[in-house]
């Protein structure tokens, strides 16, 4: 890093006892430094983007003659590696135009905030999003929100698959459709709408139902991630099992989202973690939990679709908080409750082994 600067979102402040807090209060970003002698505070103050690491170390030594050259350099290097510091003299990012940089400036700020890896210019996550090819299956409650969020985020290539037409009862939760679209294929309406949301995304659609693992294997070819937002066929051995088998064999990460009334849950699977079937097998059966009643409002649908999009983006940017192989989500009737399940791979699983 040529000219280190403390990230604005991570600005340090001193607690009463001399401890320094960096990165606000958000787990797992925030951190503390015990700074009895004031070295870290002085170094952080010097990290305003106008000095090289060598200059900061030299100033630090001038302020604290007790510190050896090596020790002063080490204090600076520790802070640079902490994730709280960014490059104030960024290298060029040729992959994105100036227009794209303005369009995604808030995304860049977000990634700067949550991404603790030292970066050259900070656009690295957005460049990965632009390079990503994502297949979205299903454009209903979950899929319409997921497809919108992935389009808005600037995913480079999207293919959207849904066999249905827009019905009046869809409009309480399905983001992409209007009254004028009733009777039109969802795939066609989604294409029109999303191209207007972001003309920089290459979007294609298909008005087909996935009828088995063979068809699914054909569809996923050439994509990096599957966003599974379809729920038919629903029964055990249905579309989620097909996705597990096909993506497992292809070594392809996939995210599956859905809701059951107020319960929203999203699964994240891929290389390096247990498969869908293994995680599911670890969840004790709960009588009555499996039947999917149709009742839903925009909140459950939106949350599940947005969480799918979030996890897809986390996978393609390398910012998944934990290895894949888990369900997470929320239940709207219990503000303090959240959904989380992770179970190890079964020793006899053909997909995991």
């Amino acid at each position, binding site marked *: 890093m040529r000219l280190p600067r403390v990230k604005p979102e991570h600005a340090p402040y001193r607690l009463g006892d001399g401890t320094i807090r960096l990165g606000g209060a958000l787990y797992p970003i925030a951190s503390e430094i015990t700074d009895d002698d004031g070295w870290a505070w002085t170094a952080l103050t010097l990290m305003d983007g106008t000095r090289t690491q060598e200059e900061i170390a030299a100033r630090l030594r001038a302020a604290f003659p007790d510190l*050896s050259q090596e*020790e002063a350099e080490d204090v600076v290097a*520790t802070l640079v590696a902490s994730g*709280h510091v960014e490059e104030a003299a960024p290298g060029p990012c040729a992959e994105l135009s100036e227009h794209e940089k303005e369009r995604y400036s808030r995304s860049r700020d977000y990634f700067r905030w949550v991404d603790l890896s030292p970066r050259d210019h900070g656009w690295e996550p957005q460049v990965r999003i632009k390079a990503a090819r994502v297949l979205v299956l299903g454009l209903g409650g979950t899929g319409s929100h997921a497809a919108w969020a992935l389009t808005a985020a600037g995913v480079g290539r999207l293919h959207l698959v849904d066999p249905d037409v827009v019905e009046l009862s869809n409009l309480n939760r399905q983001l992409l459709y209007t009254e004028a679209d009733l009777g039109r294929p969802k795939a066609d309406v989604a294409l029109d709408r999303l191209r207007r949301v972001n003309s920089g995304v290459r979007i294609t659609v298909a008005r087909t139902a996935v009828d088995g693992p063979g068809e699914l294997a054909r569809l996923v070819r050439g994509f990096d991630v599957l966003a599974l937002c379809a729920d038919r066929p629903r029964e055990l051995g249905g579309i989620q099992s097909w996705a597990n088998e096909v993506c497992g064999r292809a070594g392809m990460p996939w995210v599956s989202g859905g809701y059951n009334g107020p319960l929203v849950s999203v699964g994240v699977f891929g290389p390096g973690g247990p498969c869908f079937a293994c995680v599911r097998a670890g969840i004790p059966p709960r009588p009555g939990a499996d039947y999917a009643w149709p009742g839903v409002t925009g909140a459950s649908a939106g949350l599940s679709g947005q969480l799918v999009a979030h996890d897809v983006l986390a996978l393609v940017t390398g910012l998944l908080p934990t290895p894949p192989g888990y369900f997470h989500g929320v239940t709207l009737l219990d503000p303090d409750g959240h959904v989380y399940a992770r179970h190890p791979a079964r020793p006899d699983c053909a997909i995991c082994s």
Partner: protein
Amino acid sequence: MSSTPSPEPPQERKPRKKITVRRLDKIEPTAMTPSHGNSN
């Protein structure tokens, strides 16, 4: 007779001065500030 090297005289070695960055522990949801911050 083979000579074993005599041990180095004990050096006055001060502990190396360094800083440690500690990530904060997880905060329970109920303990988090209910600040919504920027919402536009």
